[in-house]
């Protein structure tokens, strides 16, 4: 794996059982991602985008293949080591139910920092800084049910970036947002990618997301069918 390569997946397979047959959600996928990339995984529903994202995010296990992130064979890691790897190296933005509902925006962002063992004052400062960065000044103490969908996604982005991860994974981040908020969120992530040099991998079939991408990877029936650099 070369110096500038962050992620290398080879021959990833994932099958789901349905009755007597196996359905290939991922079918021998080879995939690479460079540091600082802003890549969108695109394709129809059921094409395998989320499954690939779950494998890369160590949220699920492939049935075959290998996966190296930042030079580490992550599939060889034990459960607790995987949790730690996610905590240290990966930031997540999910489609919905993204935040812990009983914690405020500030506490949601600070949660991952607390998991890392950061002192209270420091983690609250960082949380406030990132909330400001995503344009949520003054909303730090609001709970998720007091925020709009777009604001909740911004909190999720702030949380994903607060740990300064090597890789940010976002699964359909604009799916529950109107086009205006979707566009705004994608611009925010693209801006952070440029300024903070963080690597983004986004699964989305939203044209707004694809428009913001530096690279688009198309998936169909569990396979990567094309790669376009914008």
């Amino acid at each position, binding site marked *: 794996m070369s110096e500038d390569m962050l992620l290398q997946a080879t021959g990833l397979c994932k099958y789901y059982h349905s009755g007597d047959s196996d359905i290939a959600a991922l079918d021998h996928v080879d995939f690479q991602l460079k540091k600082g990339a802003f890549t969108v995984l695109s394709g129809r529903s059921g094409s395998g985008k989320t499954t690939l994202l779950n494998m890369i995010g160590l*949220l*699920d296990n492939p049935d075959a293949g290998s996966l190296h992130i930042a030079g580490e064979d992550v599939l060889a890691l034990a459960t607790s080591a995987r*949790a730690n790897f*996610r905590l*240290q190296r990966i930031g997540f933005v999910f489609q919905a139910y993204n935040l812990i509902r009983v*914690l405020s925006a500030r506490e949601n962002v600070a949660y991952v920092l*607390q998991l890392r*063992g950061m002192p209270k004052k420091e983690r609250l400062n960082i949380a406030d800084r990132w909330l400001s960065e995503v344009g949520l000044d003054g909303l730090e103490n609001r709970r998720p049910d007091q925020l709009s969908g777009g604001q909740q996604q911004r909190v999720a982005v702030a949380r994903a970036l607060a740990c300064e991860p090597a890789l940010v994974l976002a699964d359909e981040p604009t799916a529950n947002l109107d086009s205006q908020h979707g566009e705004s969120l994608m611009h925010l992530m693209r801006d952070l990618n440029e300024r903070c040099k963080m690597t983004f991998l986004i699964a989305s079939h939203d044209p707004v997301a694809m428009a913001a991408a530096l690279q688009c990877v198309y998936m169909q029936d569990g396979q990567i069918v094309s790669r376009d650099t914008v």
Partner: protein
Amino acid sequence: MFSIYFRLGLRNLLLYPMRTGLTVLGLGIGIAALTFLSAMNDGWLQNMKLNFVLTQMGHVQVHSKGFEQSRRITDYMADTTQVDQALQSMPHVKAWTHRIRVSGLASAAGANASVLVSGIEPEKEKKVSRLYSFVQAGEWLQVGDKRGVLLGDVLADRLSVGLGDKVVLMAASPEGDIASEVFRVRGLIHSGVMDVDNLLALVPISMAQDWLHLGDGVTDVVIRADTFTAVDTIVKHLEGVLNMHDFEVLRWQEIDPMAEQWTMFAEVYTWIVLLVVIVVVLAEVLNTMLMSMYDRVREFGLMTALGTRQGQLFAMVVCETLVLVAMGGILGFLLGAGFSLYFGHYGLDLSQYATAFSFMYMSPIVYPELTFNGCARILIAAMLGAILASFYPAWKASRLNPATAMREV
């Protein structure tokens, strides 16, 4: 990290006020009832022990070796100087007295009844037992009144005698002769304890020694300790000082098997109460926590995805359960302690069962006793129940596959 567990636990519980409130109420009522039951048990036991010891038994008794088993007057102590000297400066000894204890027969005006004759030192006896406080008619034995006798009121009824009447007491002397002596009834005693009211005849010890040809001998040295916890110390001290080939030193519970059995039963009862506490907490909490866990599968999935370790999720659910049980426990303790303190002050009148109580040296008015140990036992049992109840939901939550969990609706 624990601060976030408790904060999350408390806020999640408050998210469903009705469900949490009902669980807390159920827990509170259960723990209140069990706290009160435990206090009743402690009150009963304490009352029984005190009555047993202070009615006539004392905390510790010294006899001639084998007397308690044989109950034969031949096994009397001819000389108690060694015992008296040992007790003179012994810490925790509040008072002691000598007695002569012998079974016999009482006759009066054509009626006969078996009696337990107790020769006592009237003034010293006052400091050791409550017998003098049970005099309900007449008066306590006076020093120098050699022919005075106090009878249990039921015994007096059976003999059809009253104050001033004559009673003949007969008992075997150590030589095997049947000796009899005439006494005059000076008082009647009523203790509420069957053994005392139905059987006891108290006479001056000096008269009993003359009548039964015992010289200065006695059968019992009865010791009152300043606390129950001092009993073992006194016994060990005496066993170290006395020649144990000649004497036996018995604790109060060794003198009467019933008292020992009741003490053991009280212990068993305590364990039963604690077991019920655990079951109540388990039943109340397990359902609530499982519901809460299934409601939050996505949230647990999210937490796992963010890097929360299995052990941390497990601890989080356990903490939430502990917070829930703590809320119910506080409510329960306040209610239970309130009832216990109220009835501990005013008493719970169970006089209609007085006869049954008299078998067990128990006063018909029960005063629940709220002890630190009793409260601590229930608290520990409740927390143990909470931890047990949290294990399954905590285990389930910590084993969730994040990808699957986050797909749950």
